[in-house]
């Protein structure tokens, strides 16, 4: 869902064969897709492994804030929808891990990198989901921001990543719509329910804008990703698209967005907005956000509690295989 890994420092290039590098860049410039067994620069491979796996980790960790509400969903309908959405997030994580594995890294290594804190996931999932309207606001704003990020990734130069993103984008629009639908329903309810919606949006608006990563003037590292056609738009361009799409939706919903600087520029047709609190952003990335420790604790527990299942499945498979070869 989330592509903040694009903002990490470029991987050291090492020494590459100039001729091969030029041929590779020419393929990219012709919009040819790169497939796993094709020659690629080590830095391209490393950048992709990091980006795709961090994207996968984000999908998996993203199940936690929503899982928080499964048992307390207000109706069977909303519970079924939420379960389906969470299952999709797990599925998205799996598509992405598979895409990363085509680059020569194992699933076990990737999971290990997440659990040891070596790999990051999107800052957004380190915020709590405090009231039921948060589930709607996550769908509308967080999945909405994710869609803005992900649509250009469908055209990414690396074939397996591009194909995974196409599948994900098809499913993601359900996520955003169910969130908006949930908020519309609450806005038709009591004054208290309306306040819950406003409260959720107030808390999640800025973290959603941070999902696009730092401002272009502070993001020096996307040049390689742009050149390799992994990334096609800058952070600020994508953030602007998101704001422009979301402001009219907020109006229809009947809530305000918590940004006093938000105003329409008649000339450009774009909504100008204030700056997110970048200190908060970097602090969250570093592991000091509201829920970082809880999220990692929950992931590690889920992984450790599942160890006996994985072991039993393998023991059973080995036993069956032995029986078959003996017969």
């Amino acid at each position: 869902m989330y592509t903040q890994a694009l903002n990490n420092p470029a991987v050291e290039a090492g020494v590459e064969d100039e001729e091969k590098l030029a041929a590779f860049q020419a393929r990219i410039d012709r919009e040819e897709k790169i497939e796993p067994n094709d020659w690629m620069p080590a830095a391209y491979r490393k950048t992709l492994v990091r980006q795709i796996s961090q994207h996968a980790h984000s999908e998996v960790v993203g199940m936690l804030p929503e899982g928080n509400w499964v048992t307390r969903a207000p109706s069977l309908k909303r519970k079924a929808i939420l379960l389906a959405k969470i299952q999709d997030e797990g599925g998205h994580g799996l598509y992405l891990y598979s895409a990363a594995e085509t680059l020569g890294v194992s699933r076990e290594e990737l999971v290990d990198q997440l659990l040891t804190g070596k790999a990051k996931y999107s800052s957004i999932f380190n915020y709590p989901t405090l009231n039921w309207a948060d589930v709607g606001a996550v769908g509308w704003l967080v999945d909405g921001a994710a869609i803005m990020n992900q649509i250009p990734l469908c055209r990414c130069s690396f074939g397996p990543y591009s194909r995974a993103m196409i599948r994900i984008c098809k499913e993601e629009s359900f996520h955003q719509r169910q969130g908006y639908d949930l908020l519309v329903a609450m806005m038709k309810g009591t004054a208290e329910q309306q306040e819950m919606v406003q409260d959720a949006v107030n808390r999640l608006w800025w973290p959603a804008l941070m999902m696009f990563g730092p401002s272009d003037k502070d993001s020096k590292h996307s040049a390689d990703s742009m050149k390799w056609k992994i990334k096609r738009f800058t952070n600020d361009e994508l953030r602007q698209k998101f704001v422009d799409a979301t402001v009219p939706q907020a109006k229809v919903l009947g809530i305000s967005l918590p940004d006093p600087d938000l105003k329409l520029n008649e000339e450009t047709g774009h909504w100008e907005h204030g700056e997110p609190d970048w200190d908060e952003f970097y602090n969250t990335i570093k592991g000091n956000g509201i829920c970082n420790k809880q999220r990692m604790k929950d992931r590690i527990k889920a992984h450790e509690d599942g160890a006996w299942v994985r072991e039993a499945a393998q023991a059973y498979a080995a036993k069956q295989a032995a029986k078959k070869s003996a017969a």
Partner: protein
Amino acid sequence: MSEQATPLWEVFIRARNGMSHRHAGSVHAADAEMALQAARDVYTRRGEGLSIWVVPSAAIIANDPDEKGEMFEPTASKIYRHPTFYELPDEVANM
């Protein structure tokens, strides 16, 4: 990591009768039965298929992309295999 790696399987799905199976992605599973169930959960949540094949990834043999020039050269030099190689007399409208 002390744990043993769970094997990788490639997943092929037939979207509907009349179509061939197409590669959908991959899953990890301890055995074939679990691979089929995982493939169903991961790749057919919205009616994407009527039939699933799973194949151990290690069983797939692929050509070397570095040698694709030699591998596929014969196809490029045999232009007479295409109908457009032949010019028809004007009197013959369609063939």
